[in-house]
């Protein structure tokens, strides 16, 4: 188990009671996010597709690395890591 910090973007802070970061334990990103869902009702459905993948319009970084370039939700985390959840920002005419 590692102690990590999860950074919460503005659109998800209604779910986390206004908290912009949460300290939590886990061995992988998936475990951390599932614990976040257990702690904050509705978190999982905003971030995860089916519990096995991150939603297409969400990017998750461990420190500077996008987990899509690593092992997705199986990406291991270490003590002191920061997990950043970023909504994909897009649009057009």
């Amino acid at each position, binding site marked *: 188990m590692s102690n990590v910090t999860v950074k919460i973007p503005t659109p998800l802070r209604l779910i986390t009671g206004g908290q*912009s970061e949460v300290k939590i334990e886990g061995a992988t990103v998936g475990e951390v996010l599932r614990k976040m869902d257990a702690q904050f009702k509705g978190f999982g459905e905003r971030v995860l597709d089916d519990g096995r993948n991150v939603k297409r319009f969400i990017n998750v970084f461990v420190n500077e690395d996008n987990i899509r370039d690593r092992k997705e939700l199986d990406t291991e985390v270490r003590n002191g890591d920061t997990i950043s959840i970023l909504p994909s920002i897009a649009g057009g005419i």
Partner: protein
Amino acid sequence: MIKIPASLLHQIYQHIEASYPNECCGLMIGTTDKDQNHAVHTFRTCKNLNQERARDRYLMDPLDQLRVQREFDNSPWEIVGIYHSHPDHPSRPSQTDTDAAYVGYSYVIISVLKGTVASAQSWVLNEAEKKFYEEPLVTEGDSR
């Protein structure tokens, strides 16, 4: 409501006009009061990763987002909104904008016609209705 110093908005317009005829985007950083009004104190330009349809679509580089978030991690300021351009189109949100929007941010859309900024409007998402509503965009003169 979103308040932006005139000098900052002018700099954003310069980014918009320099990027024409392509769409461009950036993040606005500032504070939010208890009534959810935003005050912009600075901004950062971000890359548009949508190269194939750069004239009518944008996809902000998530690494730029991460960089900006990290830059203001230990600051009282945070990301309060997103700006992007509509080349040769009105400063109103499209369906594409609405589909990709999130609650809590101000979305400033800037119309640029033939390379010159024509109008700017700010919008906020009503998540339940999945619909944008315009909010006042207040430009403040500043003494800097």
